[in-house]
């Protein structure tokens, strides 16, 4: 079983990463990008959720492949770590994978909520990510 303890110290949202994007590309572009990220994250979590219920390992793997990279890019460090760990955990039984996917889903939902909250609280009309 993969231990999620290693990810405990990692933040759900690493603001140094998002701030680097702001510094590089500016507020407007960053907001557009984060909007895309949140939409994609929502879709991927939904996909993983359904695949976990249906116990469809291939769909989970495909979704994890995208998730592990995009979350790392946008500073969702804890979720990135978990997605990567599950993607690389080839020795797990299917049942173990589905259990871990549920854990990942929980972290994923927290991350999604945090991103929505964080960027909504920045206070522009563009930030409606609900």
């Amino acid at each position, binding site marked *: 079983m993969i231990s999620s303890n290693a990810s405990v110290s990692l933040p759900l949202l690493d603001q140094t990463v998002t701030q680097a*994007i702001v510094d*590089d*590309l500016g507020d407007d*572009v960053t907001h557009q*990008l984060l909007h895309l990220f949140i939409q994609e994250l929502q879709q991927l979590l939904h996909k993983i959720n359904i695949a976990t219920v249906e116990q469809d390992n291939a769909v989970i793997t495909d979704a994890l492949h995208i998730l592990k*990279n995009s979350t*790392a890019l946008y500073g969702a460090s804890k979720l990135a770590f978990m997605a990567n760990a599950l993607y690389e955990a080839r020795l797990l039984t299917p049942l173990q994978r589905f259990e871990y996917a549920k854990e990942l889903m929980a972290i994923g939902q927290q991350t999604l909520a945090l991103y929505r909250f964080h960027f909504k609280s920045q206070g522009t009309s563009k930030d409606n990510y609900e």
Partner: protein
Amino acid sequence: MNKVNHNTLVYVVEDSLSSGALYCRQLEKAGFTTKHFIDGYSALAAIQQHMPAVIVQDVKLPDISGLDVLQFVKKLSSAAQVVIITSDSSIDIAVEAMRLGGFDFIEKPFTAERLVASVINANKQNKEDQVTTNHKTEKLLLSKENVVGESLAMQTVFRLLHSASRSKASVFVTGESGTGKEVCAQTLHNSGARSQGPFIAINCAAIPAELFESEFFGHVKGAFSGALTERKGAIEVANGGTLFLDEICEMALSLQAKLLRFLQTGTFCKVGSNELQQSDVRIICATNRNPSAEVGEGRFREDLYYRLNVIPVKLPPLRERGNDVLLLAKHILQKKSVENGKAFQQFSPEVEQFFLNYDWPGNIRELQNTIENIVVMHDEAVVSMSMLPSNVVKHQYDTLKNTPANQTSQNPPNPVHSHRDIVPLWIVEKNTILSAIASCDGNIPLAAAYLGVSASTIYRKMKAW
């Protein structure tokens, strides 16, 4: 960060919408124009429509592998540079991608600086490649300087060489001795993608049969008495380049079978070894015989002939190349004058006329030797008839003497019936000389050559008339 030309197009092929969008914005900030594709087939369609300068290519895509996209791109002319982006788990694939011609690979996640730097370098490489391509086109044109000619026959040869230079297909060059078969092979090598590789020439007629296999495939130590060390053969040495097999029809049948085997499999064994080796070689072969006749008479394997004769190039003899002889002569005169520190500038009109009339049995090699002889033996600005080597003049005289028209003129004159019919010898001689000069359009040195005397003899006699 350096800004680049705004027209420089970069395709980003990445299945994550948010990741691809981030890469695009980072590249746009650096001045690139970008397009994002989330699957391989959309990217392939766009590439067919318009080739970008650089492609940032994810390996794992939902439909096809990024390596398939890479292979597709690299088969096209003016191919883009491809930067592979990959996560840790697909490093092996990325290494394979580099082998397939990828420009760079970056492990995900990466910084904006790393991505932009890689794309800038790829774009730079793309520009250099375009310059190299243009240079290669120029190089082919320059190479033609060595295979000088404007005649229709040579234009056909140039077209064939141009097409052949873009492929790896075997080329079979035929032509009389001295027509420039090896120069043709060297030109082909220099103009093609293998120009940086070795050009190895073997004269199949010059190597003893018992040594041929060793020369060709190499041998291991102790393979035969005298094999004191391991030695690479021509096929191994020519790896990545071109192997030119001159006088291919002289190759023994047993070796022809081994050459065929190599052409079929790309593998060979050194003499005395069972270890299979590979070599990537382009074969250009040449003969002054008629290869299909050799096949007909059983001296050359038919299957080998068809495998080698993918692009046949027939070099015309010099006598059939019209004014090319003068172009070549001027080219050689200039070259030899520089080599020998002489001041020759041109040929006299008489020499030019002689060159055009001469049948050049030794073809370009004979022309080259003739001019080298003149340049070494004399030092003037203009090549005159008196400088021509005697063997060339004599050959022309003998040729003319044996032509049917001249044979008729050599018949004994009609018998005279009375002393009043006898014509003085100096008048006979004068008429003969004037007739010869008229036949040569007033060209006295040429007429002298035909008459078998020197031009100065004719001038002296004319002065006396």
